[in-house]
């Protein structure tokens, strides 16, 4: 069973000395931060940022650029789907698995955090829906949603969609099988396009398209944003100010955090031994039965991690509410601080996969169907699997988790001082948040240090 979709090289466990020193740094930094952080909310005030120069605005927001990017994205989508359905069934020789699990699923979060919500113009599904709407408008009819937006269900549809994807990646026994992936892509396309046709493009992008919701949340970290039709440069994290009142956002973030931590846990000897025992109990059964049972066991583990994230958060905010005698629930107020933590987990778990397995896209691009082609002259490119040393990987892991932790605390702190007039209340509400963040960070580190 390959963890995280594809890729044969697994990171070595973070050494104990790294684990203990980083955990200590995290604790000290947290308490220092708590004492010296700003006393008035800063993030929201800076969220408007500074407008980029006019000519950049014209280029970045031009219709020509958008149409070009959307067309390229749709073409790439067709290539991925075609290679998945008709290319070689050898996982490592087919373009689709490496593209989906490595280039797309690790690259897009990174792009979103660096450049903002670029998924808006890079999403192939949005491109197709925009194209359809354009065609309908050309035919002289108004493109209209069939039903009003499903406001009541909030982001739960998106959370379900993301859970389905991570279950395919982390629970299913053959996530990189090109045919399985092809069918999954086709199904997801129905989900995305059907939803947009029924509820409208914008509503479904906000509530149902799992990737769009994930990338738009991560894009709030970014130093770039489009506000009121203007591209602005702003301090990172300022997009995370305020509360998040759309239902299901906690569930969504829990899927993001829970899935990455389960990916770590599923590689520990504890879980691997458990799966080996299950296999032994199933000796004599058919491969399909074994795969099904193992997939179910993994899916249960995945769901347990998602639930654990949600429950620990709910416990922390309930505790905070008691401490400050708040009259209403604080659940919507401290969800956004989890977003940088979720990104830190992604970086910590997938950085090496991107750096190692990502190189294979160079040769796969020349021979996407695995037929011996050499379209770009790169088919014989030899990936360097020692390009990142284990030490580099460990440093990236502990540094990203620590930064994510600090960013999360800062965002939570900013929210607290915005929320409570009494500075002591603001501080008091942060003890549970601090405990929660320390739990997530040290827990995440611990998972990375397990053999």
């Amino acid at each position, binding site marked *: *069973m*390959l963890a995280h979709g594809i890729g*044969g*090289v*697994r*990171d*070595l466990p973070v050494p104990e000395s790294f684990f203990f020193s980083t955990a200590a740094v995290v604790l000290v930094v947290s308490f220092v931060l708590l004492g010296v952080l700003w006393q008035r909310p800063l993030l929201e005030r800076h969220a408007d940022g500074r407008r980029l120069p006019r000519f950049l605005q014209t280029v970045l927001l031009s219709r020509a650029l958008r149409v070009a990017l959307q067309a390229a994205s749709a073409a790439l989508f067709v290539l991925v789907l075609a290679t998945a359905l008709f290319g070689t*069934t*050898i*996982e*490592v020789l087919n373009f689709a698995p490496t593209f989906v699990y490595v280039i797309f699923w690790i690259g897009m979060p990174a792009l979103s955090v660096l450049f903002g919500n670029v998924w808006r113009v890079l999403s192939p599904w949005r491109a197709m829906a925009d194209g359809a709407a354009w065609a309908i408008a050309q035919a002289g009819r108004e493109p209209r949603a*069939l*039903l009003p937006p499903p406001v009541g269900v909030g982001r739960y549809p998106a959370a379900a969609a993301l859970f389905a994807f991570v279950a395919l990646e982390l629970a299913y026994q*053959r996530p990189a*099988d090109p*045919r*399985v992936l*092809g*069918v*999954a892509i*086709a*199904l997801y396309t*129905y*989900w995305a396009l*059907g939803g947009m*046709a*029924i509820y409208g493009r914008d509503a479904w992008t906000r509530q149902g398209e799992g990737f769009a919701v994930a990338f738009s949340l991560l894009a709030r970290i970014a130093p770039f944003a489009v506000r009121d039709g203007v591209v602005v440069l702003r301090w990172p994290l300022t997009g995370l100010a305020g509360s998040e009142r759309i239902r299901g956002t906690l569930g969504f973030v829990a899927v993001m955090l829970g899935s990455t931590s389960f990916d770590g846990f599923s*590689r520990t*000897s504890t879980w*691997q*031994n458990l*799966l*080996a025992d299950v*296999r*032994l109990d*199933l*000796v*004599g*059964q*058919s*491969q*399909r039965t*074994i*795969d099904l049972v193992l997939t179910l066991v993994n899916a249960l583990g995945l769901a347990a991690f998602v639930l654990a994230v949600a429950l620990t958060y709910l416990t922390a905010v309930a505790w905070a509410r008691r401490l400050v005698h708040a009259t209403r629930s604080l659940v919507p107020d401290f969800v956004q601080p989890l977003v940088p933590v979720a990104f830190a987990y992604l970086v910590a778990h997938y950085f090496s996969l991107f750096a190692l397995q990502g190189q294979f896209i160079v040769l796969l691009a020349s021979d996407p169907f695995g037929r011996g082609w050499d379209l770009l002259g790169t088919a014989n490119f030899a990936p360097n*699997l*020692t390009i990142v*040393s*284990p*030490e580099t990987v460990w440093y990236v892991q502990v540094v990203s988790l620590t930064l994510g932790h600090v960013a999360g605390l800062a965002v939570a702190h900013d929210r607290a001082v915005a929320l409570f007039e009494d500075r002591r209340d603001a501080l008091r509400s942060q003890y549970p948040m601090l405990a929660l963040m320390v739990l997530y960070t040290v827990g995440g580190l611990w998972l990375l240090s397990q*053999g």
Partner: protein
Amino acid sequence: MERIKLASVICAAGLALAGCGSGDDAAAPTASETTHAGHTTTETETTQTETAPAAAVTVRILVRDGGPVGGLARPKVSQDDRVVLVVDADVSGDVHLHGYDLEQSVAPGDPARIRFRATIPGRFEIELHAQPEIIVGELTVEP
């Protein structure tokens, strides 16, 4: 009313697709079987390393009754070691070392011997592609 109907048609089409999805799913294991058949052994590579001097680290793993004897094997070697991975099994199939992507056939009484130089640090799954598949263990290459 018309719109609700159209919406339900879209949903129904999705369900139909999910139906074909599970059909394709069933075909998946066969697809990967052909994969391994067309993907056997790397004899040339292994014989090349064999000619090199220096003592090799031999890792021996016994597979009986559908699993590795004594639980998942967790051998450790150092980077740049010459390694001979011997898997002795009571079934026929291919032993696959992930990451290094080396494969070697195995049969009862005819153990697989994978010889290689451990140039890449990390953890690498050792799998036995047989019917059914067996996870044999994980090789750790320490820097």
